[in-house]
């Protein structure tokens, strides 16, 4: 099940909220939340649920062993537990990719098993690894109750699309939480904004991107340079609006239930450097790699060569985390290289020397380019798209199709761009500040606050219900 579906929004979520409002004891709330989460997770097929239950069992048992073991054995239990998690993740996510490459090089094996990627495995594996590592470091106590750890890993708010929640951040909320009117209000607003962002803006951008960055080589090679650029811009908007919308909805639903998740995005397209971009983009993932890979490897407190190695290891893994395909590895290494240039070539002084607008524009260009790499898992298509971007497919600079598509969606694209900036947040603050001095603005703000979640919910429903809209083809008539 996904958040952006009619069934989730208008059946699953109301039922879940009712359970959280009317059940009074934390234990009852947690049992209900666990039941809802398991149903949510099982929606893609209960067979994946067995894997989740098994992974949680390993980490529950491993964390207890780590906590109870003598000091000299704690590291061993950590290695065993984390290794088991990584082996399972490796088998389900990377084995097929590995075998395909081995087969391409050596001709064996003859048959590659068709392993289906269990939904959310990358997210919950990292959550569980962070939990085990935090227990090892003594930052949290091991959870002795299996089903509470299962609730942490399977919480439907963040289980399949993040953010990667640390156990220490929600431990207190899981054992005892209170629901306050102010947080419910903030949660409602945040959820509605996220839902509309996904259903209206992200899906709208996807329609434009999919028309230009197509998965058919012949059609893609016919897209002129401006078409590839427009497609890349639309995909750049789509991926942020889509991903951040899921985090907004998770944070919003959490607040409605008394659970607090950290922010996962902070207007990344406003960044003045690639380093800053990764401090603002998918914060829970980059902080995971920082805390559990980069720093343990020595971080930046070592020689330049080792720092470079650490950097590229982290970005190789970051790329791999996003998918078992060469384009994701290339994408990760591309960012590793950019960060290395920023740190070791430009340095802080070098970056300050550039005007803010140049730095900001440069980051946008580099990031937009990165999303083209990210978009195409087929390396042949990626090559065609990159050639097309630079006009090397011999199909001209632009076409009436591209200019028409742009003109037909120009206001929507402007709105999507604005939605990627803090302009909306700033306007809300301005309205609130004006309301402190002027009754008219006060009431304007009050009406907006009261009505906007419901209005956005209706807008999102209109967009979602049409997802199955499928105008007939010629032949069907």
């Amino acid at each position, binding site marked *: 099940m996904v958040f952006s579906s009619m069934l989730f929004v208008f059946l699953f979520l109301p039922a879940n909220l009712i359970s959280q409002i009317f059940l009074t004891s934390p234990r009852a709330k947690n049992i209900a939340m666990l039941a809802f989460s398991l149903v949510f997770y099982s929606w893609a097929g209960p067979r994946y649920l067995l894997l989740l239950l098994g992974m949680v069992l390993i980490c529950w048992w491993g964390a207890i062993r780590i906590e109870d073991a003598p000091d000299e054995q704690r590291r061993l239990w950590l290695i065993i537990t984390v290794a088991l998690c990584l082996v399972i993740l490796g088998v389900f996510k990377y084995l097929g990719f590995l075998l395909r490459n081995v087969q391409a090089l050596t001709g064996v094996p003859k048959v590659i098993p068709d392993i289906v990627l269990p939904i959310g495995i990358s997210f919950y594996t990292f959550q569980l690894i962070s939990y085990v590592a935090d227990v090892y470091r003594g930052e949290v106590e091991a959870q002795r109750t299996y089903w509470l750890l299962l609730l942490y890993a399977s919480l439907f708010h963040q289980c399949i699309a993040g953010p990667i929640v640390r156990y220490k951040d929600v431990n207190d909320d899981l054992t005892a939480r209170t629901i306050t009117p102010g947080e419910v209000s903030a949660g409602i607003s945040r959820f509605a904004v996220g839902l509309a962002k996904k259903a209206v803006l992200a899906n709208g951008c996807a329609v434009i991107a999919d028309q230009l960055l197509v998965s058919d080589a012949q059609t893609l090679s016919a897209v002129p340079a401006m078409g590839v650029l427009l497609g890349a811009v639309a995909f750049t908007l789509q991926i942020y609006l889509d991903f951040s919308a899921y985090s907004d909805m998770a944070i919003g639903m959490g607040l409605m239930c008394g659970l607090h998740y950290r922010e996962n995005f902070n207007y990344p397209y406003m960044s003045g450097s690639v380093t800053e971009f990764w401090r603002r983009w998918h914060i829970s993932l980059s902080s995971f790699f920082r805390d559990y890979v980069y720093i343990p490897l020595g971080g930046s407190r070592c020689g330049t060569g080792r720092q470079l190695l650490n950097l590229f290891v982290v970005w190789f893994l970051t790329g791999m985390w996003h998918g078992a395909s060469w384009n994701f590895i290339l994408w990760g290494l591309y960012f590793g290289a950019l960060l290395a240039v920023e740190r070791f070539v430009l340095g802080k002084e070098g970056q300050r020397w550039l005007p803010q607008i140049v730095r900001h524009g440069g980051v946008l260009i580099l990031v937009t380019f990165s999303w083209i790499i990210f978009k195409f898992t087929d390396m042949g298509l990626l090559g065609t798209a990159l050639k097309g971007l630079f006009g090397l497919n011999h199909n001209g600079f632009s076409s009436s*199709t591209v200019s*028409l598509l742009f003109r037909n969606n120009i206001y929507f694209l402007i709105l999507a761009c604005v939605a990627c900036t803090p302009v909306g947040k700033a306007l809300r603050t301005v309205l609130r500040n004006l309301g402190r001095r002027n009754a008219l603005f006060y009431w304007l703000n009050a009406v907006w606050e009261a009505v906007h979640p419901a209005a956005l919910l209706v807008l999102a*429903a*209109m967009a979602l*219900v049409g997802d199955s809209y499928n105008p007939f083809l010629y032949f069907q008539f």
Partner: protein
Amino acid sequence: MKDRRDTDRLVQAVQLIVFASVLAAMCVLGLLFFLRPKTSLQENRTLTEFPAVTLKGFWDGSFFSGVDTWYADTYPMREEMISAQKKLESHYGKRGTQLVGTNMAADAIPVPGADVTPDPNATPSPTPLPTPTPVPDGTVHEIGEFNNGIYITNGAAYGMYGFSQSGADDYIATMNQIYQNIGGKVNMYVMNVPISASVMLDETVWADMGCSDEGAAIDYIVGKLDPGIHALDVYDTLRQHNAEYIYFRTDHHWTQLGAYYAYQIFCQEKGLTPHTLDQFKTRDFGAGTYLGSYYRSADQSPVLAANPDTVHAWYPMCVNAEDSTDRDMHMVQRDGSEYDWRIINDMFDYPDSEWYCIFSAADQPFSSLHNPNIHDGSAVMVVKDSYGNAFIPWLVDHYEYTYWVDFRYTDETVSHMVETYGVQDVIFEAATFNATGDLCNDLYLSIGS
């Protein structure tokens, strides 16, 4: 300050009540199963049914994804909500001229005859048509709006044609094979109808959008058909009449007037004298309300909504145009049920989106009409798609028996039908995109075997 705090709490309470009310209302609406629609008029399809409960479906998740799809697809008031969404989307940009969806990748069209070795024994080509009288040029030269493979300009929508080499070659081979089977017994005619874009738009407009030259595609097909087949090339004639109302603005079909010009070409080839338009009784249907297939394919474009079509119908002379209860034809439906019907069906009110269906009982596996004014045993069979529906009423005044089959819905072979009904002429009519489409080719093969 305290008042403000009280008001803030009030705002929070109102927000919660309004949000919860909307959420609850939508939740209850979704649970009113008796309100759930089963079909979509807008999309001309049956909506998703509740999935069957099976252990396999439960285990692999397909049951649950089926429930998801069913829930959204049959949500009460779905079509109204989609219409509202489409209205909202019409403000996404400047959409006086619009493109909906993407164009298809098309094959290059070979030059006709370039790879054909001249056959010294070939039958001479049909006599060329006389040079037509100059008519006003209605070609649209402007760049318009773009929406799902649909181009909208000047208040009219246009589909985009993409040539398929393999589709065309399969179609040609099938037609030639059918000719081998029946050519000795009947006169075989082949007519490919171009879509409106190819006829109405300036060629630079569709060429710039990567569309194929449909006239060249038809030339390619005609050039490779067996010389014994009578090819009815209607492209140039339709283009010469493009200042007239020969294609609908909001639907992908031609009008009956467009079909009339094709009928004139058939008569020329057959050696018949075509009737003139003023010989027929006429009536308008759906005036001011008809929004056809392009309207729905183009996401219910407001530009098209502001330019609805009218179906202008000419009644065959052999039928009673005055009495709507006088049923003049017979049809067999896809479920095998049979009805007497009217070739211009003015007995019922059609939904606003279905007015093209008044012609020839629309798309049925088999239909026939007996002309009581002719007693010479003459019989024609039209093997057609939906474009043929507007063409058939022109034919029936020239034959005692007219039979028509929709090749997409019949299981009969042409050879068998020719023998069964004793027809002398067989006309294969198909829109070029249908004729060369991969999907239709299997059907042609089955009826041609």
